[in-house]
C-alpha cells in the first residue's frame, strides 16, 4: 500500500552511516577538517624518517638563529638545529608520551572505577576521596615536584601524567557502573553462577568502553599540554630530543630580541594538536551519547 512503502524509505534514510551522523551533529567542515589534520599529523609522525627532512639533531654552530628561509622552512634554533624537521619529529615524542600515559591511566582508572562502582559503600567513598585528593593537587607544580624528587626522566613523566588520568577515568567508569549494579542482566549473571569479579569484567566493563573511548582524545590533548609545560621548565624531555615544550624553552630567551621562530612554530603545533584532539573527543561524545 502506498503509505507503507513511503514510510519504509524514510526509515531507511534515518539510519545514516556513522560518518554522516558525525557531520550532521557537528558540522561537515568541522568533522572533515579535524580528521584531515589528524591524519596529516599521524602520517608525518610515521613517515618522518623517510621524508626529505633535515636532521633534527644536527647541531650547527654556524647556522644559529637563522630566520625562516627556503633552506630552513621554519628557521633554525639557538643550537643551529632545523626547527621544521624538529617540529615534525616532535609529533612522535609528544603524541607517544601523551597516548602511553593516558592508556596507563585508563587501565588503572577503569579497574578502580569498576570495582568501586560495583561494590559501592566504603570502597566507593574511598575512591571519591582518593580522586578528590589527586585532583586537588596543582598539576604543573606537583608534576615538577615529582620529577625533581623522583628523577627527571621520561618514565616518571609518563607515570605522573597517568596518575592524573586515573581519577578522571575512575569517576567516569564508576558513574557508568554504579547505576548498573542492580540491573537485570547483572542479576541474571549472578544467578547463573558468575562471581563478582567475572561480572565486573565480562559484563560491566564492556559497557564503559564507549564513554572511555570518547574521553580518550580529550585526555591526550590535556597530556600533550602537561608534557609540553613540564618540558618547558626543563623537566621531562630534554634537549636535544625534539619536543615542542623544550623547543619553546630553547627559543624563549631570544624572543625578546625579535627571534620569534624557534618558539612560535612548536607552539602552533601544540595549538593545532590540542585543538584537533579536543574536536575529535567532542565529536565522539556527540555521537556516542545520542546513539548511532
Amino acid at each position, binding site marked *: *500500500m*502506498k*503509505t*507503507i512503502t*513511503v514510510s519504509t524509505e524514510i526509515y531507511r534514510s534515518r539510519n545514516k552511516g556513522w560518518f554522516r551522523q558525525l557531520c550532521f551533529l557537528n558540522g561537515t567542515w568541522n568533522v572533515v577538517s579535524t580528521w584531515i589534520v589528524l591524519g596529516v599529523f599521524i602520517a608525518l609522525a610515521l613517515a618522518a624518517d623517510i621524508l626529505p627532512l633535515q636532521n633534527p639533531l644536527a647541531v650547527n654552530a654556524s647556522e644559529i638563529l637563522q630566520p625562516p628561509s627556503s633552506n630552513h622552512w621554519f628557521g633554525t634554533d639557538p643550537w643551529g638545529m632545523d626547527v621544521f624537521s624538529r617540529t615534525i619529529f616532535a609529533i612522535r615524542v609528544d603524541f607517544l608520551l601523551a597516548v602511553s600515559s593516558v592508556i596507563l591511566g585508563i587501565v588503572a582508572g577503569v579497574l578502580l572505577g569498576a570495582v568501586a562502582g560495583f561494590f559501592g559503600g566504603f570502597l566507593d567513598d574511598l575512591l571519591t576521596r582518593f580522586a578528590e585528593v589527586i585532583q586537588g593537587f596543582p598539576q604543573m607544580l606537583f608534576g615538577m615536584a615529582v620529577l625533581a624528587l623522583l628523577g627527571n626522566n621520561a618514565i616518571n613523566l609518563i607515570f605522573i601524567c597517568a596518575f592524573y588520568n586515573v581519577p578522571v577515568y575512575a569517576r567516569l567508569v564508576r558513574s557508568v557502573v554504579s547505576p548498573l549494579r542492580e540491573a537485570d542482566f547483572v542479576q541474571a549473571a549472578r544467578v547463573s553462577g558468575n562471581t563478582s569479579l567475572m561480572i565486573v569484567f565480562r559484563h560491566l566493563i564492556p559497557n564503559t568502553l564507549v564513554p572511555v573511548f570518547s574521553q580518550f582524545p580529550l585526555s591526550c590533548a590535556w597530556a600533550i599540554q602537561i608534557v609540553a609545560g613540564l618540558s618547558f621548565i626543563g623537566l621531562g624531555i630534554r634537549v636535544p630530543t625534539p619536543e615542542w615544550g623544550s623547543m619553546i624553552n630553547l627559543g624563549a630567551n631570544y624572543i625578546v630580541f625579535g627571534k620569534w621562530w624557534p618558539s612560535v612554530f612548536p607552539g602552533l603545533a601544540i595549538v593545532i594538536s590540542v585543538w584537533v584532539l579536543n574536536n575529535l573527543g567532542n565529536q565522539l561524545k556527540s555521537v556516542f551519547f545520542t546513539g548511532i
Partner: protein
Amino acid sequence: MTDLNIQDLQVNINTGQETYYVLRGVTFKVPAGAKLGLVGESGCGKSMTAASIMRLLPKNATIVKGQILLDQLNLINLSEKEMRQIRGKRITLIFQDAASALNPLCSAVQHVADVYARHISLSRKESLHHAYELLAKTGIPKHLAHNYPHELSGGMSQRVMIAMALGCSPEILIADEPTTGLDVTIQTQVVELIERTVEEIGSSLIFISHDIGLVSEICDRIVVMYAGKIVEAGNREQIISGPGHPYTTALLHSFRAQPGKRMPFIPGRVPDLRIRQEGCSFAPRCSLADNQCWHSEPKLSEISPGHEVACFHMDK
C-alpha cells in the same frame, strides 16, 4: 465572556532537513463559558494547538496559515509584546509536567506571588498575602507554601500551577494533559480542582487529554483530533452515544475494556507527519476505508446541529 475561534490553522516545523506538517487546518470554536475537551493520541497535534494559541511555539515552527480569533482580535498578528499582555491575563496555560514547569529555585508561594503581582500590580508584601490565600484554595496549606518544587509531589506541583492560574483570573484556561503521570486518586482531585477553579473565575476551559473517558466527565463539548486535523466535534452526548468518525468509535472502544474480553486497540501506527498523503489520514487504520477514502480528503460537515464529522462513512 470571550469566544475563541480557530480557523484553518496550519503549522509547520522545519528541522533544517525535513518539514513536519503538525497542524493541517485545525478549525473549531470555544464558545464563552464552555468546557471543551481536545482529545487524541500523542502526536496528533493537541499540544501544538495549545502552543499556537499561546504563540509559544518552538523557534523552528511557523504558522503557515490560519486565524486564532479571541473575540475579534486575531492572535496570529500580534507582536510578542502584545502577546505578553494576553498570556496569563486573558488566556492561561497549565502544563503537563507541573514539576518541571516550576522554577527549582523559587518556592511555591513565590511562584504564585510573582504571577499575581504581574497581572494585578501590588506590592511584594500584598501579593504574598494573596498568594497564600490562593494556595490554600487549591489545597496547599501555609506550612507547605515555602517548599521548593523538588519538595513537592506531582499532584502538589499541579495545584501550585492551578493557583497561579487562579491568580490570573483568565478568560480562557487551557489545561494541557494536567493529569498525565499522576496517580488515579490524585487525578480525580486535580480534575475537580480545575472544574471548581473554572467555575469560580467564570472562564472557558480547554481540557487537552488522550483519555476520552476523563474528558467526557468534565467537558460538555468534545473535539477529536487525528494527525493534525479535527476529525469530529460535538457535544458530549453526541460524541459518546453517537460518534460519527471511525476513529472516535475506536477511541471509545479502547476506553471501555470489557471484563474477560481482550482489550480493544486500534491497529497500525500514528502517521508520519512529514508526509502529506492523498486522501484521509486515518485510512490505513480504518476498517471502513474504500477507494474514495484513499484519494480524497473528507471535510468537516455537520451531520446534526453542533455535530461535525470529517468522514465519508459517518454514522455507520
